[in-house]
């Protein structure tokens, strides 16, 4: 059976459709694979790491005490609140020094290990996850 002109035209349209879909997928992949987000221009030096680690250690008791009063008797929430304070400080520090956030966390981790065992009012353990039962 021979194909009519209309059928042939629709067949071409169908093929074009598949090609367009493949092109869209290809563009999506290419754009995702090649996109970049600006990285900070410098890294923390070894000396700066020590300084940053110490600065975080000095600030920790204050954050811990604040968390204790914000969430009295709720150990997980206290740790979580402390984590939020620490994160805020880390972000500011990274922005101020124009270094990756990862470097600042690395500095804190290194300091914790070098000062081990960490004792109160600081803390190197975590309270088991116990999300609050309601948020409204």
């Amino acid at each position: 059976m021979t194909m009519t002109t209309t059928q042939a035209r629709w067949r071409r349209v169908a093929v074009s459709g598949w090609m367009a879909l493949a092109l869209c997928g290809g563009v999506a992949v290419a754009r995702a694979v090649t996109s970049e987000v600006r990285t900070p221009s410098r890294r923390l030096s070894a000396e700066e790491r020590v300084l940053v680690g110490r600065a975080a250690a000095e600030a920790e008791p204050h954050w811990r005490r604040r968390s204790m009063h914000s969430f009295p008797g709720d150990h997980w929430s206290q740790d979580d609140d402390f984590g939020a304070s620490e994160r805020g400080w880390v972000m500011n520090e990274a922005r101020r020094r124009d270094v990756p956030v990862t470097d600042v966390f690395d500095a804190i981790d290194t300091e914790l290990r070098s000062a081990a065992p960490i004792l109160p009012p600081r803390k190197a353990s975590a309270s088991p996850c116990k999300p609050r039962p309601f948020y409204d």
Partner: protein
Amino acid sequence: MTTSSHGLLRAAHRAASLTSVRLALFGVLALAACWHSLSLAGGMNDFRDSHLLDSYEDAGTRSVTHYGQLPLWNPWSCGGQYALGSPQTRVFAPTVVLSSLVGPRRAEPILLWAFLVLGMEGFFHYARRRVGSATGALGAAPLFGLMGFTALSWSIGWLNFAGFLLLPWLLVGTRRVAEGKLSGVALVGGVFALLLSFGGTYPVPMGALFVALETGRTLYGMRGMPRRREALWALGITACFTLAACAFRLWPLIETMRSSPRVMAGTPGNALVPLTKMLLQLPARSGYSDPGNFYFAPAALLLALPALALARRRALYPAVMAGLCAWMAAGYSATPSLFAGLRTLPIFETFRYPERFLVPTCFFLAELAALGLAALLARTWRAPSRWTWAAVAACAVAISSWGLQLRAFDNLSRWAQMTAMPAEREQPFAQARGNRWSQGHLLALNRGSIACGEAWPVPMSSKLRGDLSQEEYLEEPGAGTAKRVEWTPNRVSIDVDATRPTVLLVNQNWHPGWKSSQGEVISRDGLLGVRVPQGRQQVVLSFLPRSGLGGTLVSALAWAGLAFLMWRERRGHRLPWPGALGVSAVPLAVWGVLAMAWPEPVAKPDPRNADGSPLTVAALPPAARPVNARFDVPVELVAAEVPAEPDAEGITPLVLHWRTTGPVPRSVGIFVHVVSAEGQRLGSDHPVLGGTWFFADAPRDTLLRDAFSLSTRGWRPGTWNVLVGLWHAGGDQSRVDVLGTGGAQVSEGRVYVGTFTVPRNVRANESSVNP
């Protein structure tokens, strides 16, 4: 006019019916929607939820690419957790292949694009059957596919919510099942399995709800009992197949949720105006706000009008469903609350956000729009001179609605806070104290974060530490040495030289799936441990969970069974329904046999208060002051512990000892009033005992120790009385009457339990932070 209208309609119908053309259109629209997201693929989403959820994918991908292992155990999160048993992970979905190929962060917007295309295509199939017009279905598909919630989900790292876009495929499958087609069985089971593996905490239960409703709708629309009976057989097969096909994920999830149930209290609700804004207001281009979170172009509502006017019978179901979903989305703000009713059902009791029911609202509004378009186009075909311009206007409204939704999608995508991808640092794995708000950075350092911010109580050890010099060590330091030989997520090898029998500890959480080549695996306060004998030995710990491996076998059998049924059908030897049901039930029987014959320790719930103390006690401590108050529900306040004054930090720890003796309504919670001598009142109400149990769920005839604390910093010095009562916190908020006490004072439905004195100057002692 007639000829040109007919020609145009015919061409539109033909184009809409061509899969490739349709998909190309959806592909282009999805690309436009994702354009901004794709341009950010090289960064890391810095939103807190993204740090948690995307880190799961990062960890899973790391297991595959760095260690060549299945992502069964995730040592980087929460001190180690069962990846398959964690509800929000998507590491066992097929999408992990793409994550492994291009990286988990770069894969996200590509997956978003693919889900958008799938969502629009699924809606097209659903709507074409429902409204009888390919062109109408095509016009409305982007209204559902490009709803705002998907963009919001991507922006804040909830890609698992893209699973909502597969809802129409579930309904298409359900209808096919009711028609006796095995392809429908495969579709329903396959989509549920995909949704579960993709972390669909809301899409799965909500999908099940709408599948049940679609089943009812389809059965109702069928003529004659024989067809209905056939449909019921097919639905039975679908239920068996779906359960078994999901076993690889369902079994681990059930196991986990039984050992760590999530409690959800509160009465979330949305008033009509905010709800309308969430649905219909164009979202802002920056910041996090509720308006537009679930954007559905208001112009598209115009398309519902011809549906309601010209196709009333067909419009009834989607109109009613859209209304019911909106009612559900209002949560506790609506009276009566449909959402409150839903929450009485198992699984749905953990739903937190009623507004997510705006997703199905969008779906049914889009169905109404499809119906409106279809009705106008059908009339144009029959009477072009009267209806052509109305149809042209409707098409213009549909296309402009696509534009509005694209704009909203782009705006919501811009809410994403992207930061530079963290620089990888190769070093041996160790647990760090970490930070759940920035977990993605820790993973790049090959550090686990024991700070955990999951939405459910992950089983964790309080013995985990983030300052250890070695992650594997002997419990008694003098009992010998332990040295790591090999470390991978699912297998750890340690050389142990023990001078006496001892316990080897690994700085990760225990799970019953851990097996050891030597000695017995134990939980040491939730920490992974192995009893090792005296002598030199290599201990190889392997993570081989029964539920994950057994469940995968059951799921494989389910697909094999379905393939067999389809093969028989293709050859013209279709099995009779009872036989087909038998085949689909075989994997479930295997599941039962595996559960009984494959022994594995059971992780049991360890109910604790927020301060880590046990929630049940065998007897009252000597410091407890008897109260013996009985209430108008079977709850007794047995005793209370109130210190004379706050501790050195100004914290006042309080303990209430309760006992339940019968069924208690779920609405019942505790109120605590702390009243000064001057009459100033402060409170510490809590509807859930120790953050763990509603009274309704607490074990009966057991002493329940409810511990909580007050910070008295800034309080007026002097004496403060503590008064306790019960109220319907999750209901009408009325107080529960006190029936009698053993002499304790009662006023206004409150029982006096003690007094403490806030001193003039609260001393500061920083060493009192919990260790």
